[in-house]
């Protein structure tokens, strides 16, 4: 039975899993769970992952969620080259440190930019205040500053001379605000150069392919947004006010 990966490439964690799997020729069925059509709320998907989040992995009867866990699982099961998750005690610790830090420091602020600058206006028809957007942008800039100063420093990649899971997870997260036309790589040439290196390591074709749905999000016809999804979003927005 083939590996099943439940994903929508609009989601950064899905892109990390997709890129890693493709890069290592891991054979899998791409189970497309369309976030815009609300497929993550379908009975079929809830049976796989009651948390209704992406990505999920299904390997025979074994179901696994959380991209960081999925990436480690794939690394170990398919014996990926060691530089992806180095065995050296200190180097491995740096990967794990980044993977832990990024949940709150990267994922949340990067997602917020897309919500505030693109999704909320498109879905509700209301613009978000400049103050809120400025605050979100400041948060992203702060996280990127910490990323450069603490994690990347003057190295080619986070762990040194070779790409690892940390770079993959970082790059897909920093790409997320592109959907809202916010290019976080403009902040520094160091960041832009690192991105180029990561992209080349992955393969430009694969990198572009993984990001094409994200890059087209702004052109999507939001009037066709699934009503359940729209309702859930409106509820969330009301709660966060």
């Amino acid at each position: 039975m083939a590996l099943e990966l439940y994903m929508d490439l609009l989601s950064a964690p899905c892109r990390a899993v997709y890129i890693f799997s493709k890069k290592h020729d891991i054979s899998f069925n791409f189970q497309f769970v369309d976030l815009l059509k609300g497929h993550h709320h379908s009975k079929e998907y809830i049976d796989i992952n009651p948390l209704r989040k992406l990505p999920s992995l299904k390997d025979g009867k074994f179901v696994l969620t959380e991209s960081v866990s999925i990436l480690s699982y794939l690394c170990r099961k398919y014996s990926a080259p060691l530089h992806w998750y180095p065995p050296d005690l200190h180097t491995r610790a740096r990967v794990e440190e980044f993977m832990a830090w990024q949940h709150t420091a990267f994922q949340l602020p990067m997602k917020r930019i897309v919500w505030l600058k693109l999704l909320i206006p498109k879905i509700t028809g209301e613009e978000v205040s400049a103050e809120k957007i400025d605050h979100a942008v400041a948060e992203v800039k702060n996280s990127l500053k910490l990323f450069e100063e603490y994690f990347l420093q003057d190295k080619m990649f986070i762990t040194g001379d070779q790409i690892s899971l940390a770079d993959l997870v970082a790059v897909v997260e920093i790409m997320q605000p592109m959907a809202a036309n916010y290019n976080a790589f403009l902040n520094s040439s160091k960041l832009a150069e690192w991105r180029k290196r990561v992209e080349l390591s992955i393969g430009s074709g694969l990198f572009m392919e993984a990001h094409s749905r994200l890059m087209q999000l702004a052109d999507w016809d939001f009037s066709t947004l699934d009503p359940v999804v729209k309702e859930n979003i409106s509820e969330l927005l009301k709660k966060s006010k």
Partner: protein
Amino acid sequence: MGLELYLDLLSQPCRAIYIFAKKNGIPFELRTVDLIKGQHLSDAFSQVNPLKKVPALKDGDFTLSESVAILLYLTHKYKVPDHWYPQDLQARARVDEYLAWQHTTLRRSCLRALWHKVMFPVFLGEPVSPQTLAATLAELDVNVQLLEDKFLQNKAFLAGPHISLADLVAITELMHPVGAGCQVFKGRPKLAAWRNRVEAAVGEDLFQEAHEIILKAKDFPPADPTTKQKLMPRVLAMIQ
């Protein structure tokens, strides 16, 4: 200089590391970083962790932040019993899955519950609206239920039949709202039974020792204005 662990047992992730190190007989120097005095913001501490957070580890010249990374470092270096972070592919994945999930869910809820219920009003002298508190406690309730329904289910421990890093991280998180007076185990016999198993596996004395400070959180004296001013921006960022 041997292993140094920079901790404040007021902090949930610090408690997990403290318990883990003690339980496994890992020799370390405890360097207390007093959070309510703002010691984590000192220049001296930023030499250890430029991110100015606890826990932090210093092993010779090597420094490390992030509790999950620190727990894994200790696991790899000190060759602890397998059940903490099993070699088995799927068993390990279950532990990783919980450790990843908890950052933005249970961890966040437990932190906000403590701050909204106790630390803001009592320590910082900042009132919290009943609506804010109610929303925070409702969110906590959702995440505690997820812990039980998705992760624990009918198993003895979160990742299987034996205690692992996942249980240690989860229990130390839950003791945060317990310290704030929230009865998270009430009406949850399965979770309460799990809590007792975890405490027994860790050792009652060690468990109580690690949680002495958080259980007294309600009695912290109010912060003086200077300290309050120093702490506020980072507190607000931390709990958002």
